[in-house]
């Protein structure tokens, strides 16, 4: 409960401060001014009331909800699969020197390939349906978690090792009590990096593989129909959800790292 309160405070306080609204409001005013110049401008800079009307319309037809949920579901599944695989591989590499020597060169090589550059290959393997998208999204979560989990788990301090010896800790208890908490700040940094990256990749994958429910798909259709208002509603939804996710991860970090003197998350 207290986490929720802290979270709300954390999330709302920057929103409340007047200064943080100055530039967005100015931009909005500029936007609105531009749209009122002529028809050409009105196409590129859709008047705000049109965007609002499109929003209400999409909400009424249920299109916005269905597609937002479609995107969220994919992002969540991708994050869970990719994140879990990343944690497992990172931990495996940290615990086994041989695994690290075998895997880390190829991992670092593959990591250099831009994710979306892999799409033709993935389309070939998995088609252009949901599984291809989830695969790409999972990769977006996978990379940062492998690296950070590995880093967090592989540096361990001998003074805590001695403590584990003194108290006769089993391997599992040493992991639970010492190595995992020690790695936690690193893992949370990984999650912090992975979440926005995952969300961006979700929309991007929907733009590339145009099938199934998703905000990216709606954006593609809107672009084809020159419906800039719908496109903007989708873009704003994506942005807003991105902000919410980042805030959630930050609140989670603050809670899990409450034992630290300063919450540097």
């Amino acid at each position: 409960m207290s986490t929720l309160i802290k979270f709300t405070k954390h999330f709302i306080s920057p929103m409340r401060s007047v200064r943080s609204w100055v530039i967005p409001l100015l931009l909005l005013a500029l936007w609105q001014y531009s749209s009122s110049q002529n028809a050409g401008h009105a196409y590129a800079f859709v008047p705000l009331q049109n965007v609002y009307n499109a929003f209400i319309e999409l909400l009424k037809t249920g299109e916005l909800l269905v597609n937002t949920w479609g995107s969220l579901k994919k992002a969540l599944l991708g994050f869970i699969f990719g994140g879990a695989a990343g944690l497992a591989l990172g931990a495996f590499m940290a615990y086994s020197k041989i695994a690290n020597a075998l895997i880390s060169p190829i991992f670092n090589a593959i990591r250099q390939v831009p994710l979306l550059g892999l799409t033709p290959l993935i389309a070939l393997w998995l088609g252009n349906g949901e599984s291809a998208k989830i695969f790409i999204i999972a990769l977006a979560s996978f990379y940062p978690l492998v690296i950070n989990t590995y880093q967090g788990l592989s540096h361990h301090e001998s003074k805590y090792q001695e403590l584990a010896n003194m108290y006769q800790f089993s391997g599992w208890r040493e992991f639970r009590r010492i190595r995992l908490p020690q790695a936690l700040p690193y893992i949370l940094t990984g999650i912090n990096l992975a979440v926005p990256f995952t969300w961006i990749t979700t929309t991007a994958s929907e733009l590339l593989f145009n099938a199934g429910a998703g905000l990216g798909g709606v954006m593609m259709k809107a672009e084809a129909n020159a419906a800039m208002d719908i496109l903007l509603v989708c873009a704003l939804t994506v942005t807003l959800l991105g902000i919410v996710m980042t805030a959630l991860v930050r609140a989670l970090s603050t809670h899990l790292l409450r034992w630290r003197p300063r919450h540097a998350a």
Partner: protein
Amino acid sequence: MSFLTIHNLNKHFPQENKLLTVLNQIDLEIKQGEFISIVGSSGCGKSTLLRLIAGLDREYEGEIRLNGQPVQGPDLKRGLIFQEHRLLPWLTVSENVGLALEETALSLAERKNLIQDHIELVGLKGFEKSYPHQLSGGMSQRVAIARGLVNKPDILLLDEPFGALDAITRDILQKELQRIWEKEKITMILVTHDIEEAVFLGDRVVVMSARPGKIKCIIPIDVAHPRQKENAQLFNLRNQAISNLTH
């Protein structure tokens, strides 16, 4: 019968291409419930000796026996308190104290009681849920003492436990340790470079000389507990220990 027996103990460290003798022919017999202080200048091997008794270092020649059993590796029957508190920063005071009980067969309720009793023993009631970064150095060392005692070890080894504390806190904790030792009736070995501390707390003070680490003499401190810091007899014994160390 002696409780802890150290017989003809030698310890070498490999250094470059020869062996450096850190401990040379250490013989020591400690009775149950006794408080032994070990003093010596840095490099006399006193901390090494303690780590050998703790079982953290298993490479030595000679004999170390506790209750007739040879020491082979760490054991929950031997508690060790380090110079730094070595609390896990991500665990609360209660959880840190509980670390020493995690690999025991005690029930959850028994653990809870033991943890609470020992937190109260070291005077930290009300701080059960605090994290180490919220505690002062002295309080952290109190938690470390509680953790060292919570599983009721046969012997508690203290490796310069107050060395990093300020003079006032050190003074308070020395008196606290005396009180705890009297209350718990547990055997303690304290390694320190503070002669006054050694004399104030010890039933006997083992004076060590350096290079190689040897026992120079053992001074019995025949002053009844609880002792006062201002005791004249202690003052004389302290001077005797100092002259032994420097000659």
